[in-house]
């Protein structure tokens, strides 16, 4: 690998963002990925790194309500943003209806993809209260379950949609 890859000096950048409703200010290297900020600096390790190649969606979080792959954004790009991770789903010790439904439907096996899947499901259900089977499939097309447990995941999203109606 050529030496030129590493710059001689890196100027760190100050950012301020909200994660799960809490405000954080940090000074970070500009090349730091959002998922690295979440896991390493903020100790929010619920967001997983699966492939690190923008394929698997394990690192999915919501940024200002939109699902994004946090391995494919720099932390500095989240300056001023509101981020929601799996840790922010639970409220006052109560699981979020999506979390409950994933448990009730056995919508997880090894659990590695689960945080990302739940946040993709949340973007869907916050915009579409009555998703069709096709809508649900399309919503999670960017989330790979290596255990291939998609049937129960789709059942869980369906159940969560029913339980969230009128909520």
């Amino acid at each position, binding site marked *: *690998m050529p030496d*030129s*890859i590493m*710059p001689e000096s890196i100027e760190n950048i100050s950012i301020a963002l909200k994660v799960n409703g809490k405000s954080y200010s940090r000074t970070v290297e*500009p090349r730091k990925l959002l998922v690295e900020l979440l896991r390493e600096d903020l100790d929010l390790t619920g967001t997983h790194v699966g492939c*690190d*190649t*923008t*394929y*698997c*969606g394990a690192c*999915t979080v919501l940024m200002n309500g*939109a*699902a*994004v*792959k946090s391995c*494919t*954004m*720099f932390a*500095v*790009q989240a300056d001023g943003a509101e981020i929601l991770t799996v840790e922010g789903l639970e409220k006052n010790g109560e699981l979020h209806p999506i979390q409950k439904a994933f448990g009730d439907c056995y919508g997880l096996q090894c659990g590695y993809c689960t945080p990302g899947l739940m946040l*993709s499901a949340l*973007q869907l259900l916050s915009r579409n209260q009555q998703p069709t089977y096709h809508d649900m499939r*399309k*919503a999670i*097309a*960017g*989330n*790979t379950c290596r255990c291939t447990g998609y049937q129960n995941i789709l059942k869980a999203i369906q159940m969560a949609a029913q339980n969230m109606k009128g909520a």
Partner: protein
Amino acid sequence: MLAQLGEDAKLLAGGQSLIPLMKLRFANPAHLVDMNFISGTSYITEEDGALRFGALTRHAEIEASSAAGKIPILHDCAAGIADVQVRNRGTIGGSLAEADPSGDWATVLMTLSAEVRCLGTTGERTVPLTDFIKDAYTTALAHDELVSEVAVKLPPKGSGGAYLAFKRSAPVYPTASAAVQLTLDGDVCRNAAIALGCVGLTAIRVTDAEAALRGQSLTEKTITRATEASRAAADPQSDTRGSAEYKRTLVGALVKRAIEIAIRRAQGEPVEVGHIYA
């Protein structure tokens, strides 16, 4: 800023291709200039019979836009690129500026005779898309220029189009894709534009296939002629997505199906299509 930083600087738009390329060290810019904090770069407007897209308009915004929905082929493309997460970040301007041979937008926009507005330190210029894309990963942009806008004319009455891309799974680039845009007058094809994606160094406009349809009534015979011309124009490489012969066969089938859908849409029938999965 680009002029000051020199040739080692790169613009960061949605980052859904550039960041993965940087991780692989295929791209190794000394400086990144993030366009995302520049306001007024994301918009969809309709005036004087044309749609204009700000360079940083996200695929998801185009997918949800009723204005863009007036040209169904734009919705086909925007709604099918990669997955939800990538569509929330990826941009139309970034896709064209990257000029990946497998990118979706160039193939679709070629059939709409899109124009790309380029902004640089010495001023602005408008470049037809066919001149903008020079080669794989190579555009007409100077290093101190950026894409500011993409414009397409609304097609005349009696028009319909379809974009079909065949993929192995959502997040990957298609194996092959075909864009067809037709204008009909009764049974007769007044105008046709056909472009192929992922089967050459750039999207390929198939003028022979267009000529096979133009002025003709669209029968099985003329459609077959256009499909054969498309197969002949494809210049695919064998790779992990499939052999060259497989892709050539696939792209022919996609063109045929896209023509059939374009005809139905031109006749006013709403047809839902999406990217096709293996």
